[in-house]
């Protein structure tokens, strides 16, 4: 024994070494050093240094989480320098799932783990915007509105009402827009797509769960980084709709009369001759068009006043034509400066972030500014058994102008929006009158559109502001080894306010001289108290993890609105206080409350790293439901089989990792307005008041505003997911394939009841109808030189997802429900067996070529030669509302994206392409531009209208007094919305650190240039093929009423690390 010892002692050599990481060249702290086939070992210290006695010919095995094990023969060396290569197959990445963390390789559900580096290579105001195309099965529709949170849909449309996912930010659930959150603060993002992964979030998980973790500290010296960019956004003017010139429009007008057998009677602008002439002036006082005499147009009479009786405007005709889309857009800067610092010591870690973002809009007089601040800290005490800390974020944001930071994506769409006006206002109207004030539709036959440049300019004083706090404090304690109790109290507090102003708009035909200030103030609070108990235990090859918890959530919103008219000064921000208004005093307040109490449990079991099993259950109690249906249960079970761990796969030459997953679970939806189970009445002077005493005094009355459904309960969704994850040997190719089948049942939606049942009150939400979504998702990654030192690196990623949506059943007895009213159009329908939001209307079968064509075919009152011939769908020989049918599907056949990343030495290039295929868009703006509905701009499409010499055209000929059936909802409005877009290109260069020397302490400098929306291939004729759906209950997907188009963006960026 002593001999042995002596022998051993004799053979030992003392060596020392330093372990550094191959990726960031930093020392590796806590790496394990073992001697192969012999006892003994150590770990590296805070500087990555170790010392160890080793026998002769020893081989060291160095390991560290996230890095490949490395074997180093000591030989005769006594000082070693060891570099660990990072493992880049992502499988060991720890991801945050429901109330716990898991290694990616242990996942059993369908979880999309977003590559944050790739996400950040596309700088955007909202992290959701850059998520587009980065996760298979997650459809994101963006627009150009500054500060907007894009529309996000996880695996299709699951319900008729709100389809937004639940966000969980640092463990605290959150519903709403994300414009307050800086992209830079995000450390990781996961999307829980199937019920087996998300049902731990129970009643709020139907639309998927997006888990966001903000940056945490790590022990070590402070790492400071500055990320900034500045750029220019330019409107993509080649996509602007083309409108007729004034002369073309006048010709079109005259032809319309001639075709109807009438003498042209187009007002005073175009003369009384047989062909139109253009006027010199449009307006001079009350004289219009060609009636304007030199005396009328005498500039000394000009008087741009607030008083309609003395208002005297002189406007020249723009005979060349105004391009209103050009006029209302401009290039606009965007910039962001973000600072972060992370670090920590043995018992405390911290992460700090702060930043400023300012994005102006490419539509004039719009912009969004955000200041954000974040502090995440964690402390350990009691021998590391107690951990506590906080995550806190505060952001102040301010938006001004039209369409900025909307609460629901695309909600600014309106026929009175500047974008709609740009579609409608005649091109003969100039932007400004002879004195540089706004010109408008006041005049003869100029329609009733408002000057969009004027509307935008006047809306510049419309502000919205938000003070947003979001965060939590938490503590966790290891009671016994493996058993951890955790409590977290999260708080969301938002205080928001804003003002909207109205200015006199007498240049507008329907304008008036009223001016108004509307002001609002409101707050939203929501606290979430979560308590969990987690027990982890390993018995040999069995690993258990059991979690149980409770969660209580309470929310409240309250808002105060007030307004007044008649301000002495206009346009003076310092003057706009309510007291200064002289008339139309108004005020109101509204509010909501809600609470949830939940119990949940989760059990994970794995055997031999090969068989994984997970089960969850949650019981939610919600204030949204009545006494009989307060509680809902949401179970899920899933399993995975790591086939690659099986002996029979050990020798396969193809896969280094192969995992098969199956999951089934149920989730719920409770996102309906509160108290649907009660009949509710309002005492309201506007809705139920009556001047019983005569005169102008109104007495308030009471009316039933909401009808009840005492039986209302949870909407539930059950989903089956089958997936396969694989990594090909060598790690060059990896990916996953998922197939799913989701069925929403007891769908919550307010089935419109007949007026005989509810009058004009609100129909209650009922549990009626089923919806089905089935689909396939594929994502593939291809990596060159990922795990070696070759300076050339290449990565490619492909995402593909296909979802088939079907409304299976509506409420009992209801098979069809047309909805989506816009002017006289009803655009969409819910119909069993059809996809959600299918477009509805007449099918254009052609153009009536002659009188015989009308009499010989099904027709309608007012059918005419040169007008639409519709398909007689019901075969009754006439065109009636019964012939309306499905004319399009807003749901895409599939989504796809491609990302390419190349790096060579200090250079890196990232490219990202995104596409949507097979969806239809309802171009509702054609109601104004393609039909004789209102006087106004007409699309150049109509230059190719049907005529006796152009009989092949499918566009109706100009005609005065057409039947309303000609512009009723029809397939003429429905266009193919497929597009393929080069979304992003970024080229970066990392300046070698030695260029700065060591004195400055700079560890990393990268500069980059990027461009977004570089090209778009589409046949769609609207401003932008990305159309956010309207409203969140009874959403109308794919209806284009004038979207804020995404600009092209050129950025220069700089990142510096200390």
């Amino acid at each position, binding site marked *: 024994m002593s001999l042995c010892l002596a022998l051993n002692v004799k053979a030992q050599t003392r060596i020392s070494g330093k372990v550094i990481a191959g990726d960031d060249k930093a020392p590796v702290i806590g790496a394990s050093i073992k001697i192969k086939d012999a006892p003994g070992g150590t770990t590296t210290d805070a500087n990555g240094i170790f010392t160890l006695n080793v026998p002769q010919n020893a081989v060291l095995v160095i390991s560290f989480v996230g890095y490949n094990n490395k074997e180093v023969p000591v030989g005769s060396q006594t000082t070693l320098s060891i570099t660990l290569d990072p493992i880049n197959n992502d499988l060991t990445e720890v991801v945050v799932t429901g109330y716990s963390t898991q290694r990616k390789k242990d996942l059993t559900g369908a979880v999309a783990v977003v590559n944050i580096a790739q996400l950040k290579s596309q700088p955007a105001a909202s992290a959701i915007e850059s998520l587009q195309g980065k996760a298979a099965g997650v459809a994101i529709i963006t627009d150009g509105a500054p500060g907007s949170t894009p529309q996000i849909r996880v695996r299709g449309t699951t319900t008729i009402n709100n389809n937004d996912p639940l966000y969980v930010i640092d463990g605290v659930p959150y519903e709403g827009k994300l414009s307050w959150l800086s992209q830079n603060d995000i450390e990781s993002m996961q999307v829980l797509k199937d019920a087996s992964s998300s049902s731990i979030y129970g009643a709020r998980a139907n639309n998927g769960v997006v888990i966001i973790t903000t940056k945490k500290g790590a022990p070590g010296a402070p790492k400071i980084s500055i990320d900034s960019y500045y750029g220019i956004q330019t409107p993509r003017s080649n996509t602007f709709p083309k409108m007729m010139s004034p002369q073309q429009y006048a010709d079109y007008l005259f032809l319309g009369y001639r075709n*109807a057998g009438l003498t042209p009677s187009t007002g005073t602008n175009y003369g009384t001759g047989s062909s139109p002439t253009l006027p010199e002036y449009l307006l001079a006082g009350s004289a219009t068009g060609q009636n304007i005499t030199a005396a009328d147009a005498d500039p000394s009479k000009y008087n741009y006043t607030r008083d309609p009786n003395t208002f005297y405007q002189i406007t020249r005709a723009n005979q060349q034509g105004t391009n209103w889309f050009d006029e209302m857009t401009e290039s606009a800067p965007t910039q962001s400066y973000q600072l972060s610092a992370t670090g920590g010591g043995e018992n405390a870690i911290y992460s700090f972030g702060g930043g400023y973002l300012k994005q102006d809009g490419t539509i004039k007089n719009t912009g969004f500014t955000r200041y954000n601040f974040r502090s995440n800290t964690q402390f350990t005490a009691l021998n590391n058994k107690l951990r506590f800390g906080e995550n806190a974020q505060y952001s102040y944001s301010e938006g001004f102008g039209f369409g900025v930071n909307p609460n629901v994506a695309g909600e600014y769409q309106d026929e009175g929006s500047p974008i709609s006006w740009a579609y409608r206002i005649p091109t003969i109207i100039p932007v400004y009158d002879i004195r540089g004030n706004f010109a408008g539709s006041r005049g003869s036959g100029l329609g009733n559109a408002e000057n969009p440049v004027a509307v935008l300019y006047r809306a510049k004083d419309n502000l919205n502001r938000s003070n947003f706090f979001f965060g939590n404090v938490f503590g966790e304690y290891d009671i016994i080894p493996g058993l951890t109790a955790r409590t977290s109290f999260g708080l969301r507090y938002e205080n928001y306010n804003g003002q909207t102003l109205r200015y006199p708009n007498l240049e507008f035909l329907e304008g008036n001289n009223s001016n108004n200030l509307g002001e609002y103030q409101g707050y939203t609070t929501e606290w979430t108290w979560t308590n969990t108990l987690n027990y982890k235990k390993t018995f040999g090859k069995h690993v258990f993890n059991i979690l149980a918890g409770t969660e209580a959530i309470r929310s409240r919103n309250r808002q105060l609105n007030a307004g007044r008219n008649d301000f002495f000064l206009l346009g003076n921000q310092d003057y706009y206080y309510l007291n200064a208004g002289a008339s139309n005093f108004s005020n109101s307040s509204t509010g909501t409350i809600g609470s949830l109490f939940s119990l949940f449990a989760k059990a994970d079991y794995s055997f031999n790293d090969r068989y994984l099993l997970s089960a969850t259950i949650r019981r939610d109690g919600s204030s949204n439901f009545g006494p009989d249906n307060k509680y809902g249960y949401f179970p899920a079970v899933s399993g995975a089989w790591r086939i690659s761990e099986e002996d029979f796969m050990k020798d396969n030459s193809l896969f280094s990792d192969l995992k098969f997953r199956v999951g089934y679970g149920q989730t719920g939806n409770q996102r309906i307005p509160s108290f649907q189970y009660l009949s509710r009445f309002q005492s309201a002077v506007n809705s139920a008041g009556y001047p019983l005493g005569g005169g102008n005094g109104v007495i308030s009355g009471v009316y039933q505003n909401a009808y009840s459904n005492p039986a209302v309960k949870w909407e539930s969704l059950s989903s089956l997911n089958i997936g396969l994850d694989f990594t090909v040997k060598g790690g060059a190719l990896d990916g996953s394939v998922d197939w799913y089948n989701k069925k929403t049942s007891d769908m919550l939606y307010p089935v419109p009841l007949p007026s005989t049942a509810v009058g004009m009150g609100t129909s209650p939400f009922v549990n009626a109808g089923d919806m089905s979504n089935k689909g396939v998702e594929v994502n593939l990654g291809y990596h060159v030189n990922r795990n070696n030192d070759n300076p050339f690196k290449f990565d490619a990623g492909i995402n593909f997802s296909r979802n088939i949506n079907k409304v299976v059943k509506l409420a009992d007895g209801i098979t069809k429900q047309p909805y989506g009213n816009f002017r006289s159009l009803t655009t969409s329908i819910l119909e069993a067996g059809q996809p959600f939001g299918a477009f509805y209307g007449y099918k254009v079968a052609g153009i009536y070529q002659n009188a015989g064509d009308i009499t010989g075919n099904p027709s309608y009152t007012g059918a005419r030669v040169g007008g639409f011939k519709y398909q007689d769908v019901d075969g009754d020989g006439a065109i009636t509302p019964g012939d309306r049918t499905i004319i399009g599907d807003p749901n895409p056949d599939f989504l796809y994206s491609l990302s390419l990343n190349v790096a060579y030495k200090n250079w890196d290039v990232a490219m990202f392409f995104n596409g949507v295929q097979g969806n239809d868009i309802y171009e509702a703006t054609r109601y104004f531009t393609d039909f004789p509905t209102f006087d106004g701009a007409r699309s150049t499409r109509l230059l190719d209208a049907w005529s006796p010499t152009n009989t092949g055209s499918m566009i109706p000929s100009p005609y005065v007094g057409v039947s309303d059936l000609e512009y009723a909802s029809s397939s003429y409005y429905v266009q193919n919305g497929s597009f393929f877009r080069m979304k992003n290109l970024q080229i970066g260069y990392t300046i070698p650190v030695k260029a700065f020397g060591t004195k400055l302490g700079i560890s990393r400098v990268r500069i980059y240039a990027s461009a977004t929306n570089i090209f778009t291939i589409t046949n769609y004729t609207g401003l932008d093929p990305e159309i956010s759906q309207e409203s969140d209950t009874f959403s109308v997907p794919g209806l284009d009423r004038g979207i804020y188009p995404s600009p092209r963006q050129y950025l220069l960026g700089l990142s510096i690390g200390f």
Partner: protein
Amino acid sequence: MLIAVLCTVLSCKKDFIEGNPQGELITGNLTSQDGVEALLTGAYGLLNGNVNGTWGNYGAAPSQWLFGEVASDNAHKGSSNGDQPNMNLIEQHSPTSTNDNLANIWDRCFEGIQRCNNTLRVLSALQAGQGTVKFDDTRAAQIQAEARLLRGHYYFFLVRVFKNVPLITETTTDPAVDNTKDIYPDIVNDLTYAVANLPTSKPRDQVGRVDKYIAQAYLGKVLLYQKKYTEAYAQLNAVITAKPDLVTLSFADNFDIEKENGPESVFAVQHAVGTDGTGGDNGNVGDMLNFPYAVACCGFYQPTIDLANAFKVDAAGLPLLDGSYRTNPYISDMGLTGAAKTGYTVPRTLALDPRIDYTLGRRGVDYRKGYGLMPGDSWIRDAGNAGPFVVVKNVLDQGQITAGTAPGSTNVTGLNVNLIRLADIYLMAAECAVENGDLSRALVLVNKVRARAALLPPKTVAGGFPAAAYRVSPYPSFANQTYARNAVRMERRLELAMEGHRFFDLVRWGIAKQTLESYFGFEGGYFNYLRGITIETRDDYFPLPQDQIDRSKGILKQSPGY
């Protein structure tokens, strides 16, 4: 520790997930005298056809301008062809069941009916002892009578437009009721109850409430629609007897915001603006499109050329009952160009009933007070579409705009709309008298209406000259029943033009087809879109709203012919 936390949270969970609606009431809050009165006020609140939001209540307008006048020979939709195109189809009598104006009146009337039913339901619960202090029997009966009269009114508005209407009352438990039953008897029941239980003075001394005279007038009107002339006459004549002599009352006061609720105003929808903190929700929102174009808004509701010419009188000062007023028609400056247009002068020698210039605005003639002369096309959105005339009766004098319109919306006025005024009652009674063979009574009543018209001050043109050879004389006699019938019907048209009666009168007289086809022949000579329209039996009524048929799961049946 955690166990303790869990238990604490669990024990409070029951309360934790309960709460009360915010800013809303539940049924229990309303079972009181104040609750019932407030519900009744809400039931009155729908008389202006608006829940809230001002825009879009055109079909439900208390003036019934769209279904009562645009659908007749009195008025065009106006404005330009493409504006509110569904209204063109009402004018052309080719509406489809998806026409939004149909849903508009249907929904709002049923909202009114729901409010009446809720009032009756909660009243009955209170009187049955389910609340606090009951009403005394008198007020309880009055409230019932008020609510039932209002319900009768909402049903009457529905039945005139749709004919086939489902009956929902306070005792209906399943609202899936079909529309095959004639509901006129139920309307009569409600109104009969109101006659029996309403006082002749206004309940609670509030001028906007319904009283016994309103109930009698309304009952008389509904009975007349059912051709029950004797019973109708009794009710109508009772009101005539109780009210001042029409000849002593001013015609123009009926359309003057400063003379509201005067002696001639029997049942007026009360409109109020400016003091309720709303953008005009309690004003006359149904007529908010109906102004000369440059005056307030929109340029809708233009009187027809046929109506203007119907005001012509013969040498004896009597209307041209044979239709000869269409000979050599007066069309103002329509179609003129160049110097003829700019130099147009009013033909002052035309012999006209003076009511023409209190019913329609025409170029060169003094318009309402403060506006000066009507300037012609600059007040018209598209003269080629709907002619040279503009509305008058629902417009304010210029000096009344500031106080009489909603803040920021000069097109929402506080002017009341007369549902039934005394002249209407005289003429309905005259009609009953004619059908009952009492021609002398009919003559007396018609001549009182004409005698009052003769007192109207003449309107002037530039220079202060009378705008026409105004003349309106009493009928010396009615030669026979047919003549008397024609005279009464013509008087009704002239007196009540643009007040929402005409189309419904034509239908109940059974002459809609002949009158309108003849009118389209005449008016179509000026407006292409009216040419060649034929009227079918179905056109006496309008189709039920398609969405309501769909939502009823087929229980509601579409009107025949649609």
